[in-house]
């Protein structure tokens, strides 16, 4: 089992979600996050006062999927979240030791 964390542009969330549902992903968790990478922030000017906003809003999507689904899911997110402009985000992949469904007590793949 793998965890896929994808940080995407907020306006791309619906597109990514729909694309993932289409390939059979059953659930996901999203978080509103702020951060910066190479894009850096932007500046805002209020009555002549200039503020650099370093942290810009992004959406973080957390998914747990079985190993065989990983390439397809990653490819789907890449396609759906891409604008080609700086700031499209990143995808992180890591291993997950265990998944437990609280209601039934199922373990592992069945619990995803």
């Amino acid at each position: 089992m793998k965890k896929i964390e994808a940080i995407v542009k907020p306006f791309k969330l619906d597109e990514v979600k729909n694309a993932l549902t289409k390939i059979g992903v059953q659930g996901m968790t999203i978080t509103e996050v702020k951060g910066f990478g190479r894009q850096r922030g932007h500046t805002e000017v209020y009555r002549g006062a200039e503020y650099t906003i370093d942290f810009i809003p992004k959406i973080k999507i957390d998914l747990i999927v079985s190993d065989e689904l990983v390439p397809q899911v990653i490819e789907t997110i890449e396609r759906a979240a891409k604008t080609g402009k700086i700031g499209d985000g990143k995808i992180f992949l890591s291993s997950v030791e265990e998944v437990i469904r609280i209601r039934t007590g199922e373990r592992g793949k069945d619990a995803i």
Partner: protein
Amino acid sequence: MKIFSISLLMFILSIAGVAFAGEQAPPKVDTGDTAWILISSALVMLMTPGLALFYGGMVRRKNVLGTIMQSFIALGVITIQWVLYGYSLAFGPDIGGVIGSLNWIGLRGVGVDPHPDYSPTVPHQAFMIFQMMFAVITPALITGAFAERFKFKTYLVFLILWATFVYDPLAHWVWGVGGWIKELGALDFAGGLVVHISSGIAALAATFMVGKRKGYGEEPMPPHNLTMTLLGAALLWFGWFGFNGGSAIASGAIATSAFVVTHVSTASAALSWMIVEWRHRGNPTVLGAASGAVAGLVAITPASGFVGPMSAILIGFVAGVLCYLAINLKMKLRYDDSLDVVGVHGVGGTWGALATGLFASKAMNPAGNDGLFFGNPSLLAIQALTVLVAWIYSFVVTLVLLKILDRTMGLRVSEEHEMNGLDLSQHGETGYSL
């Protein structure tokens, strides 16, 4: 014998008084005029909550209630002050051209008959309540200068002192019968000197006395809700029709022309600020358009009722540009006039008072005068002199009042309270629970 002669004299005088009153037609209330002044009073009342939103949106969210409250509570404090003695100081029977007497304390003698000088066709009390709304909003305007750091308890005392020692005398000089600035022939239709220069320059003094916000210039302090600010600006614009349109103390020709030029100048200034900022910084900001509108309202205030619509376009246009330059200058000088009271009300009010000396025309209002562009340079000189007087008076007295309050009560909240915000530290509430 002496008592007898005095009472005889009194008797004769009282008969003479009766005879005199009998000769003159009793003052008649005009219902149209009265309706307009009462509505105008309500319109001006709405400006203070409008100002609360205008300012409230520009501060950080932890200070939204504290900022709104400083404006809102002026409706409470100044209303009572005005009824008890403020109105009497400002408009009561003149003492030496400098102050009203205390004859009208508690509104004694301020009844529902017209007053021959102030409101010949409108009940005296209608004039009184109309003027009260001006007295309320003026000190509330100053609060933008010391937003996000002023102690509420001290503020309440400041309100009373400032109204008593700055607003009331200045209103008497400019508008009171016998007031020395009025006697000079200065024109101030709806409060360029009394409201905007007085508050704008008091704000300058307050900026010096109160000091900068913690972290000013180091951490970002962007407005937390500009939709609120825009709604506030719209309410100010709306209420200003009463502010200027009502200042004729009658309904009719002058009220209409004041109403029209108020609107025209505001529109013009909203555009000019937006255009200048767009060219200078690359974006036509909403805050800029809202600020420009207020600058246009401020600038036309003394001139409304004396100028025509084409002059209003120019007055507003220049106001938007000048006030924009002023707030940029503030950024360079690093003063923390947090919500730009000096830049908008001080500079806009000064421009408006001088513009009255340029653009006023007897063709618009026979009771006014001609300005420089209508062949009379002397009015401009009078306007400039009175601007200078209002600047100096408001600055010095505000400085002294704040100095006294600083020594006795303290002006600022503690550093910790400032960090946590005025909402929690001063009022035990938060504006939003999200």
